[in-house]
């Protein structure tokens, strides 16, 4: 199975294969066995070219890896996604830009906009309080507020849909 991983604006191409449950990474002409051990769920020790890495992988609305003290999102595309892209189809994977999701869990203390309001990118939409700090949620795009899914005084989970702009 061929993959492309987008990680910190680098594209990493590789192929993974499995023989009797042992994963191999295939590079140019030769295959190397992946010396990968799971330490805890989602936490791995990988020795690659004799370099020792401890890597964690988790899914939190996107796939996030932690390696060498750096925590960064990674977008994995397998053969099917690559083919769909080559055919010019939208992969339907991209989150719609105008959807504003709660970046943190917290309490909505003030909703500053109403449905129908025209907003410009960067405008404050609402104020959330989390861990005793006030945070302004800003418009990711310009447009008109289509719907608002929260009220002031409401607690929201991380990733909850708050408002839609189109």
């Amino acid at each position, binding site marked *: 199975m061929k993959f492309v*991983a987008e990680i910190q604006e680098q594209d990493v191409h590789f192929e993974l294969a499995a023989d009797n449950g042992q994963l191999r990474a295939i590079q140019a002409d030769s295959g190397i066995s992946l010396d990968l051990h799971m330490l805890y769920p*989602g*936490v*791995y020790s990988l020795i690659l070219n004799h370099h020792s890495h401890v890597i*964690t992988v988790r899914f939190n609305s996107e796939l996030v890896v*932690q390696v060498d003290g*750096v925590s960064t999102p990674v977008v994995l595309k397998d053969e099917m996604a690559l083919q769909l892209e080559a055919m010019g189809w939208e992969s339907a994977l991209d989150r*719609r830009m105008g959807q504003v999701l709660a970046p*943190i869990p917290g309490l909505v203390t003030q909703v500053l906009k109403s449905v129908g309001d025209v907003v410009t990118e960067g405008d404050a939409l609402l104020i959330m309080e989390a861990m*005793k700090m006030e945070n302004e949620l800003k418009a990711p795009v310009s447009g008109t507020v289509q719907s608002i899914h929260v009220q002031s005084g409401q607690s929201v989970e991380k990733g909850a849909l708050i408002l839609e702009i189109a």
Partner: protein
Amino acid sequence: MFRKILIVNRGEIALRVMRTCREMGIQTVAVYSDADRTAPHVLFADEAYHLGPAPSNQSYLKQEKLLEVLKASGADAVHPGYGFLSENTAFAAAVIKAGATFIGPPAPAITLMGDKTAARQQMIKAGVPVVPGTEEPIEDVSEARRIAEKIGLPVLVKAAGGGGGKGMRLVHKASEFEKTVAQAQREAASAFGDGRVYIEKYLEEPHHIEFQILADEHGHVIHLNERECSIQRRYQKVVEESPSPFLTPEIREKMGQAAVEAARSCGYTNAGTVEFLVDKHRNFYFLEMNTRLQVEHPVTEMVTQIDLVAEQLKIACGEPLSLTQKDVRSTGHAIECRIYAEDARMDFAPSTGVIQALFIPNGFGTRFDGAIQTGCEITPFYDPMLGKLVTWGNDRETALDRMHRALSEFLVAGIETSIGFCDAVVQHPTFRSGQYDTHFYEMYKSDLLATLNDLTPEAARAAALTAAAHQLRQAANGRLISKNKNKQPMNRWLQIRRGEQLQ
């Protein structure tokens, strides 16, 4: 000495206090909310009492309930830690009324220093320099705006009822003044139940330097030198060190005397911290006094080899200080990094979730004061600080190299933390040079954040391979990890699994 102490706090500070209690043969009593039943401070304590639901106003801030626990447990003293009720005069008074000792200063000193305006007036009276600004909390916003313009912008708007960066806002433009004051008032009201704010002049290239003091009930007041706390983001400290690379021996001496004077003038006893702002000309101004143990107290402990909690307990018992000013020696250099559950790349938004795996650094000159464990959940109910990593070295360079090593060893899987950000600070050439002030973060923000996005091609490759292998394994386990409907459906991974015949 006390027989049994009730610690009305949670997290790392509750554990920190309990450790000293146990060393001194004192029984410990923990309290906990629904969210903390299996938290480390509860596991460590000799006794534990349930308080109520997770939100702190229904648990750790519930005075009547805490006083019931005090009575039921038969504890003879209460340690408040920091935050929560540590600077609440009514609670301190209620503890004393219940016949127990409150481990902290006398109630009037807490009241005075808790009211930043009254503290300021007291300092002016005691001859300790203060920052120019309004002496009273703002009542008339337009009058305050005139004063702000007279002092000269930018000015800081600060909560009169508490510290820690909550309710604090900077105003650059006169046109933003009203809006910012209103924002600060709301935040202060929510954090401290007191919405009053005041304004003060913003100093040039300021350093935030504080002095640890100890005062007994027999009139002895000493200081244990300074902590440099200029590395802040969102007006909250992230990295602290002692000694300060900025102070000269002469200015240290002067500031130490001023700190002692500040404490003496209000009849202070127990441990406390006098915070100063020092401008680029090394003029220093009293900022505030924290009438409790500070988060960053281990920095002082590492260089002075004095257990500050032990001193607090002895003072509260009425013992005289065992050392005089000239006995205080600072050896080597200590630095502390606060490890927060937060995402530096998302403007330090708090990060919540379960800690999947944890490796805590260890080794020579390394100390971690925390209260986290594998499997514990970081909830939005409490402060996002996971703990404090402190390293000590013979000199500053060794302490910093050691901190870099310790941070590289630290793994907290499952949530975002400030470990990478702290390392970016510790490795930054300006920080290494010691020539930094409180503007460090704003000035080098892009450098620091770039470091967080700086993976070597080899590390990127390792991460990509592991991520793909992880996804295959998840698929093989038949587990649905995608919660987002817009993302790849899981059955595609199942197809891959079949195709590859992965076991």
